[in-house]
């Protein structure tokens, strides 16, 4: 029981940074919040909406994303997000770090 809570907290910390990279990686094309949530879920990454939306705002305030409200195909107004030029540069660096990190971790855990 005690360990369950510990593991949950550690997973939460682990996922926090990973989700940011996942979001940046999926916003090469425009997505609105809910479509991004489903896209991430389809790829095997379940993200809670209460985590995703504040994260999108944070990434936008850091200049890594751009967004605007639009009506597409006569649907309701939605806020569309896309990665910014600065976000692309940051993502490229993060990808490199991620590869090195996963390689190192695989070596350690195998």
């Amino acid at each position, binding site marked *: 029981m005690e360990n369950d809570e510990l593991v949950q907290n550690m997973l939460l910390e682990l996922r926090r940074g990973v989700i940011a990279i996942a979001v940046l990686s999926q916003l090469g094309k425009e997505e609105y*919040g*809910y479509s991004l949530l489903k896209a991430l879920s389809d790829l095997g990454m379940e993200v809670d909406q*209460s985590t995703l*939306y504040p994260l999108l705002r944070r990434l936008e305030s850091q200049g890594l994303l751009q967004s605007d409200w639009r009506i597409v195909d006569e649907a*309701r107004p*939605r*806020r569309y997000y896309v990665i910014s030029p600065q976000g692309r540069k940051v993502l490229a660096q993060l990808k490199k770090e991620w590869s090195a990190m996963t390689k190192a971790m695989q070596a350690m855990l195998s």
Partner: protein
Amino acid sequence: MNLIDSYVTEVGKYLPRRNRSDIEAEIRSTLEDMLEERAQGQGPASEAQVVALLKEYGEPRKVAASYGAIQYLIGPRLFPFFEMVTKIVLAALALGLTVSFGIGTMRSGMTSLEMARALGNLFLQYLSGAIAAFGNIVLVFAILERVLPAKEQESMKDEWNPADLAKAPNPDAIKPAERIVSILFTVAGLVILNGFPQIIGLYFFTDEKWTYIPILSQAFFRYLPWINTLSALQIGLDLWLLQQGTWKAAARIAAIVLKACVIAMLIAMLTGPTILRLTSASVAGTPLAEVFDQFGPLLNYMVTPVLLIAILGTLVEIGQTGWKLVQPKPSLPLEVKK
């Protein structure tokens, strides 16, 4: 108003005003998307589906909280100082009240019931004083939290050099705790002198209640505009120093000028009419009345040495500040190559 509107409005209540309408619109849009998908084109969603969706989305306050940065009244960088100052002030209050209780009860020959009542009274006095002091400390620190720049965070971005550890302490560095304590005591002094000057006096426990004699004379209040101005300038200087993080020549000159003004005011107090008022009429009915003939004039004369000591202390401070202004900067004892 439907359930989704009510939910969004409820979340909005806890959102920061600046982004509220934008976040509300995004939550509404997401909820409608989710609902549409769940209804799968079979007409409008049922109320049960809406309820289930909102339950899943989360409790409104929790949802709103996920958007907000952590809001501090007093943040982690000032909290250790806040804790220290609070402990000092509460301990000083306890000490002051206990001493005054001791003096007040020493010669009154109280019964044990009276003593118990006096102790109860003392406890209530401490409680109300402690709450007021705590409130004022929180207020001052909450203001400091908002006016001070995040120096620590800025400095954390800089490249850190272990050679800095070998350097002698910087004589120009500001000690934030000293400045904060100075601001707190100046504010407390201003509040007492302007709002409750009558409480500065001698306290006695007689007839099962506390009585006190105000001791400040009318002449003292002539100096109040000066005291207020100098105190405001001192607070301004302290805030400026906290913001700068280091003593610069201009700040030292300002401190010397300010202290010189304090000395001028103390000399005026010393040479002008007495700032304490203690007459046989004012002590009538107190334990002091019996011994006023012997000790009354002595108490009135005490003001001169106290003012002289204050002038001397301020002169020493001017000397120290002046010396730091003119002395050459110490060279570093050790240089470590990077």
